[in-house]
């Protein structure tokens, strides 16, 4: 995809994203109950109104589901499906933030996560006492995240001067170089074997490696990442970033420092990926160059694209599908050819819905809403075609 095409696609995305906001205005009549209460009790108003405006039934449903999930699912589904999907989703979220809101596709997000993972193994404990320093977790984790975030920003600083396919190339090169460095350096990174037995610390008497605590730990950080991105894209910084995505030259002319905004976006993405990386190394209990190999760099891109890059929920949806496929494709197809199923599934999703699962969902909702609107004879909502037509201001 050329840079111009990419920008155009993202433009359409931004426009399509705009309409749910209009819908929220339409829903406003439901709010008066909360409003009147807020007038009655002046100590409550701001936050209650805030909540009633932003939280709808499906938010509550999803939240309740993810909270109750580990109590109804087996430990396997809690840990290997739930936990793994959330971690991979968190790492892919960093790419969604960069790609969906910054217009920059970086293949090095797994590398940043891997840096955090390696730092945890090197500063913390592992099966290689000659290398691992054995520092306590509360030193190791912030340090690992800080170093990985700095590396993320550095990668950004190197690659922001490029656009589109060249960004992909340069970040891929960085990722592959890092993979080979890990594979061939023995004094610090222990080469091909990497680090085994990188155990999750026991804090407050809880073994954070066991399925339910681990699930909640990951869920907490996944939600934190999700809301961070949700919040950031509405801040002046986030709006400027989206402006830069759509038209960097115009933003530059308006006096915005394009490069600084982009580097900061990389740093934020680096932070999210770094947290994901720490959680991932705890999930696997080990880190090897294979964890940051080309396969995984691309898997993160697949997860992000599969889910859809328009909304921070996308990567998590993508990760769920990805993890389910990785685990169960072998059961539904010939055991020696099961990778075909995975590939065919990805192909089908990307072919039939260029904006991933989110696109499917939005199209479905638009169709339902159209039927709804007709039956009620209320004001018609803008269809997708209309949105597309209006995407060039």
């Amino acid at each position: 995809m050329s840079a111009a095409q990419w920008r155009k696609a993202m433009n359409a995305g931004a426009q399509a994203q705009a309409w749910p906001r209009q819908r929220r205005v339409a829903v406003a009549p439901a709010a008066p109950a909360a409003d009147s209460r807020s007038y009655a009790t002046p100590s409550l108003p701001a936050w209650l109104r805030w909540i009633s405006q932003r939280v709808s039934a499906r938010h509550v449903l999803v939240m309740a589901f993810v909270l109750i999930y580990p109590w109804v699912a087996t430990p396997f589904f809690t840990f290997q499906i739930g936990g793994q999907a959330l971690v991979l989703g968190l790492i892919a979220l960093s790419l969604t933030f960069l790609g969906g809101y910054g217009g920059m596709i970086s293949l090095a997000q797994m590398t940043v996560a891997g840096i955090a993972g390696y730092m945890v193994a090197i500063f913390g404990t592992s099966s290689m006492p000659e290398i691992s320093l054995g520092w306590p977790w509360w030193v190791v984790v912030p340090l690992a995240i800080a170093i990985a975030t700095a590396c993320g920003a550095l990668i950004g600083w190197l690659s922001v001067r490029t656009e589109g396919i060249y960004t992909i190339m340069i970040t891929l090169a960085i990722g592959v170089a890092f993979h080979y460095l890990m594979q061939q350096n023995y004094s610090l990174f222990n080469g091909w074997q990497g680090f085994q037995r990188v155990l999750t610390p026991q804090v407050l008497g809880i073994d954070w490696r066991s399925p339910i605590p681990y699930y909640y730990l990951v869920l907490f950080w996944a939600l934190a990442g999700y809301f961070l991105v949700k919040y950031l894209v509405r801040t002046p910084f986030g709006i400027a970033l989206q402006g830069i995505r759509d038209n960097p030259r115009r933003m530059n002319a308006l006096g915005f420092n394009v490069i600084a905004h982009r580097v900061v976006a990389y740093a934020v993405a680096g932070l999210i990926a770094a947290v994901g990386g720490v959680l991932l190394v705890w999930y696997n209990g080990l880190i090897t160059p294979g964890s940051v190999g080309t396969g995984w760099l691309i898997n993160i891109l697949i997860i992000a694209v599969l889910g859809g890059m328009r909304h921070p929920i996308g990567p998590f949806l993508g990760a769920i599908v990805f993890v389910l496929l990785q685990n169960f494709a072998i059961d539904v197809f010939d055991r020696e050819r099961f990778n075909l199923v995975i590939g065919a599934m990805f192909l089908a999703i990307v072919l039939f819905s260029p904006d991933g699962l989110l696109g499917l969902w939005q199209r479905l909702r638009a169709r339902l809403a159209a039927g709804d609107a007709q039956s009620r004879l209320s004001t018609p909502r803008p269809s997708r075609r209309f949105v597309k037509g209006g995407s060039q201001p």
Partner: protein
Amino acid sequence: MRQSKRVFVRTLVAAAVVAAFAAPAAAQQTVKIGLLATLEGPFAAGGQDGMRGAELAVKQRGGVVAGKKIEIIKASSDAKPDVAVNATRKLVEQDKVDIMVGPLSGSEGIAVKDYSKTQPNITFINGSSGAQATTLVNPSPNFFRFNTEGAQWMVGLGKAALDKGYKRVMVIAEDYAFPYSQVQGFMTEYCRLGGKVPVKAWVPLGGKDYASVIARIPKDVDALVVVLGGADAVNFLNQYEQAGGDKPIIGGSITVDQTVLNYKGKRRESLVGTLSAGPVADAYDAAEWKAFVADYKKNFPDGFPSPSLFAYVYYLNMKAALDGLAAVNGDLSDGQKKYREALSKLVLKTPTGDVHLDANRQAIGSTFITEVVKDPQGNLYNKVLRKVDGIDQMLGMKKEDFKIGSRDVPDCP
């Protein structure tokens, strides 16, 4: 509303009761065995053959042990430890296997062994992984290995090399646990008998370009010890020949396996005379071995002309799993305690002689020293020079002196 809710609750209770009764009844009739090998990545061909070996062991018993049906559930990894653990976890926790057989490669074995500690009621039996540390460091009480490991496979090769007059050799090996073990098995004996190893070159797994290694080969070495697997070995042999190399080669256990012997390139001819060692030898002429090979060929016409090391070792471990099951008459109750005791005491009758376990549940077995020769049809095969029996993990050293092989251990420049 209330009525429907009550019906719903009743249905749930009924379903739970049915499930509770149905589950043990099903478990009594079948024993589920998880089978993990690499069907992707650098060892895909080996992994596929490993699966054949394991299936053969089940077929020989007609798929039934002690009146119970054996159900095999397969999983794949790509030789990466995290993938192997994920696949194993799925088999154990989701598919609820009773016994687990796998994985294929060294670091996968260590990771799966570590995982086995979290599942004390399941019995884990190795596939073909051959890292020494799996059973030497932090052994797990429910992880068994009925195959000898990488270092044991090379015992006897050092003496054979000296007998051929190779007094100085260079080592070219992949840079991870399994080749370290292999090199240690070779060098422990070779150095003790006076051989010298001036240079060791450790290359990354899956490397494509060996030019820099070939350039480092000293003029005064008599032979090269090449411990590379599958496609890597083929790549190296190709490039070494193109560079005009003519030094004799001493192979590791997976270097001149069927995968390489079936190679159709030019270097194929110059492989003749190559020494190697391992737990299998195609041309071993004991009747049990011949029967095993015939059985393999009959069951897998699409397989290799002769079972590879992976097929054989997976066969051994699956056979041990089934023999143990037969010994306790299929009794897996009480957290499989009886079954594990039976496995520890099992004297496994294998096509290459008896195998029994040491205190760490690691096999003590035999190694073959072989030399590549060409048969009248033009097929290459490994001719047996010698069979060494009763090799344990200490390689004839005292326990206090023993250190696990690494890049620098042992050393005799």
